[in-house]
């Protein structure tokens, strides 16, 4: 009997602790999800309703029109063509910058781990410093340089900046991955007469997908979400979407069209969110690697 009572109380304790654990997780989850749900719902509600019931309320109306307006007709900083142009600017900037910086990072990482030379470790340490340099420090030099090569107020200027800035990250990621690959693999191939490129394509690239996915996700979300360079080096219809969203917020002081703004904000948030939901596991890996190494 005593044993039963003990088991029952242990069971009760277990149930209580489970209730507390899941209760806390649910409360936290609601806080985390709330802003996303609010923007999604408000992108479909009409403005009188929002103004009357507030932003955090269950929708009474539904229309896709605000998405259309945000995309195609809404006025951002003087021009009334929605955020589609800025969205495409962000794509035009992010995709090449991601591909170029990742490709170069992979080759650099390969060289700095498998073709070491005198001073290569010191060189790697210098390259790593680039990870920590704050953007503010390079603003004046970039602005001069972009002016000199006629890439001021241009998406291509931003591509250049993001490639150079991203190189440190991509090199770091890839080098730390390749360092853990046995040197014997490469040595054996070299004795067989394989050269630099052959080893790269036949041995390194085939084992690289995990690190390349991590790097691509890291670069894509980072460059897409970047704001400082976008707002300083581009204006108007050349701006990436992050800069345009701020212009949109600042412009609508009189009557704020929360529904259209919500749709615009979601358009700006969607690509990185998509990448996150599709490649979540790799996203987390990138974060932890970027942080701890």
């Amino acid at each position, binding site marked *: 009997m005593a044993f039963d009572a003990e088991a029952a109380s242990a069971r009760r304790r277990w149930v209580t602790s489970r209730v507390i654990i899941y209760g806390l997780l649910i409360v*936290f989850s609601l806080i985390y999800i709330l802003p996303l749900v609010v923007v999604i719902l408000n992108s479909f509600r009409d403005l009188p309703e929002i103004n009357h019931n507030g932003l955090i309320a269950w929708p009474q109306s539904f229309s896709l029109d605000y998405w259309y307006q945000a995309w195609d007709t809404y006025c951002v900083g003087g021009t009334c063509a929605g955020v589609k142009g800025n969205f495409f600017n962000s794509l035009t900037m992010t995709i090449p910058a991601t591909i170029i910086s990742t490709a170069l990072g992979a080759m650099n990482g390969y060289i700095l781990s498998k073709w070491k030379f005198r001073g290569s470790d010191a060189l790697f340490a*210098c390259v790593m410093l680039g990870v920590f340099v704050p953007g503010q420090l390079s603003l004046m030099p970039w602005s001069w340089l972009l002016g000199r090569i006629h890439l001021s107020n241009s998406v291509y200027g931003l591509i250049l900046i993001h490639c150079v800035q991203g190189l440190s990250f991509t090199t770091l990621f890839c080098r730390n991955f390749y360092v853990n690959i046995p040197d014997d693999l490469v040595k054996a191939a070299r004795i067989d007469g394989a050269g630099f490129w052959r080893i790269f394509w036949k041995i390194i690239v085939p084992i690289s997908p995990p690190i390349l996915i991590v790097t691509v996700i890291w670069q894509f979300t980072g460059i897409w979400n970047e*704001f400082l360079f976008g707002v300083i080096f581009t204006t108007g219809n050349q701006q990436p979407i992050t800069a345009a969203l701020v212009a949109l917020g600042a412009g609508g002081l009189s009557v704020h069209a929360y529904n259209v703004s919500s749709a615009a904000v979601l358009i700006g948030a969607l690509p*990185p969110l998509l990448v996150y939901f599709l490649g979540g596991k790799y996203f987390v890996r990138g974060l932890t690697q970027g942080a701890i190494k």
Partner: protein
Amino acid sequence: MTTQSIAVPGAGHAGPTWPQRLAQATPFLVLAPSVIATLIYVFVFTGWTIYISLSKSAMFPVSALQGIKPYQDLWANARWNIAFHNLFLYSFLYVVGAMVIGLTLAILIDQRVRAESVWRTIFLYPLAVSFVVTGTVWGWLYSPDTGIQMLVRSIGWSNFTFALTTSKDTAIYAIVITGIWQSSGFAMALFLAGLRAVDPDIIKAAQIDGAGPFRTYSRVVLPTIAPIFIAVLVVLLQFAIKTFDLVVALTGGGPGLATTFPANYVYDMMFQRGQIAQGAAAAMMILAALAVVLVPYSIWLVWRRRREARSV
């Protein structure tokens, strides 16, 4: 360490042929553009900004020097002192808040909960979203006419007040809360990775000794992941020092100057107020703040690695 040690058949004593030389040089040729670009970015650009911070640059960069006057002006500027004070207050609250919540979430998820990946996905998604988006949306939620205050009042608590962003005294806390919301999932991910690496036998031993869950964590588990605490601290401090977009989107630095941060100050001085030298001086202060965090951290990392190498 050797790059060209393989004897190539057919190479006479006349030395390597041109194709062989090209093959030997390939790694250097491939590496060179990236390394040169990065070294310019890191050293030349930084040196350049140091030079500008000592120059007479105002509306446009000029090469005439004026010494440390921009730094003196900077520290004499009330706006900068507000920005600097804000950075300290924000960093402290943000780092402590994100670490406490991140650790709480990590420990909760570590209790063999169901659907672990769902919880993780929820807590981490803010990190995939730009600060601009986060700041804009939270700005709406803080706004008393549309957001949380309105919600609570509509439920029936008619004199409920929640208007952080409208007052100079409280606007900074709006940024703190939003910053914590954005980053605590990140702290969670790092803590969780640490918790998973703890040897399960240690935990079992503690439980056999009669330690409850609280004691097991506070006395046994958390001390073993102390290095993770330091890593999280350093990364969050870096985020805090670089805070810029969030403030621009959430409060625009206001009301008044209440939420001005050093990074906003740099932007204002360089691109709005035509005080480039002082802006560059402020940028150097951001670098100095980062160095204060990162230099001791790297020294500690090296020291730890050496100690581990010795003890093995």
